């Protein structure tokens, strides 16, 4: 009995230490500039993927850039609409849980991320709808799926939800 009370006393005497936690968000904003802004506007208004064309080497750059990374010349204002279908060039399967660093929300996980070779030969990195690892392979035909709600669009690349698998042969057979 005496032992128990002395133990309790010792616990009471143990000093309490306070930890001060600070977790308020720091806010910032950045401007997209004219070129990326046009890319954002086309995605929101017309559900189009656009790149800009170099006047010298005629290459199309995505995301758009004010200066051609190859020729180092002013890109001017020559826009090209890109096809929304392509094939998976390379892919990876992300298993590591990731959080949005800006808002602390957990991103859906796991998901496949792929480099997509659009039909005119421009590369685009995006996520795929297909989450079954066994059905993934390089070369599958994919198509962009856009956010349907106009108000929700306005985040550039994120206006495309993912690229879904399309089986063109299967589609043709259905039509015949």
């Amino acid at each position: 009995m005496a032992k128990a009370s002395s133990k309790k006393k010792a616990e009471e005497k143990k000093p309490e230490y306070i930890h001060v936690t600070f977790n308020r968000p720091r806010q910032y904003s950045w401007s997209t500039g004219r070129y990326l802004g046009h890319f954002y506007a086309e995605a929101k208004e017309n559900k189009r993927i656009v790149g800009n064309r170099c006047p010298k080497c005629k290459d199309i750059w995505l995301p758009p850039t004010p200066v051609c990374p190859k020729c180092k010349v002013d890109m001017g204002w020559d826009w090209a609409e890109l096809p929304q279908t392509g094939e998976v060039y390379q892919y990876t399967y992300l298993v590591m849980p990731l959080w949005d660093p800006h808002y602390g929300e957990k991103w859906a996980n796991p998901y496949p991320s792929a480099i997509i070779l659009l039909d005119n030969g421009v590369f685009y990195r995006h996520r795929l709808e297909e989450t079954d690892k066994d059905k993934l392979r390089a070369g599958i035909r994919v198509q962009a799926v856009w956010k349907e709600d106009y108000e929700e669009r306005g985040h550039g690349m994120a206006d495309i939800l993912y690229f879904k698998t399309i089986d063109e042969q299967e589609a043709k057979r259905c039509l015949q």
Partner: protein
Amino acid sequence: MSTVTEKLEGMDVWLYHGQIYIPNTYSAGAVGSKFLIELRDRKRIVGTRCPTCNRVYVPARSICKDCYSQLDEWVEVSNKGTLLTYTVCNQQNAIQPVEAPIVYGIIQLDGADTGFVHLLGEVDPEQLKVGMRVQAVFKKEREASILDIKYFKPLV
């Protein structure tokens, strides 16, 4: 996704508003913890006295800043004090604990020899005066934080 974008009127330029969390935690230490626990449990503001300089520090600190003596003597100070100086911040910022306009004051509590930085409330910024008497207002639910004192209000 809850990021916020905004198209500038008449231009192909978008503003992207973001925010980033940089959480950090630190230990208040032996002296700081005791100061915060006194606020939480007994609604008392305490400081430490330097035996050599005979100066009372509020908030409490463990070492005298001038003579480096160990400060062991705890003293309770009043929750009323005199406003030494103040500033008014009109810009809202998410890292601030309250909404703008935010009035910060340095208050010398009765019995203390140093200034104590805190918020001022229930006051019109126009009517602030250096030398006015203020009193601490405590929160009902306290959690051992410096914001257990809600703000200092003017004594009528």
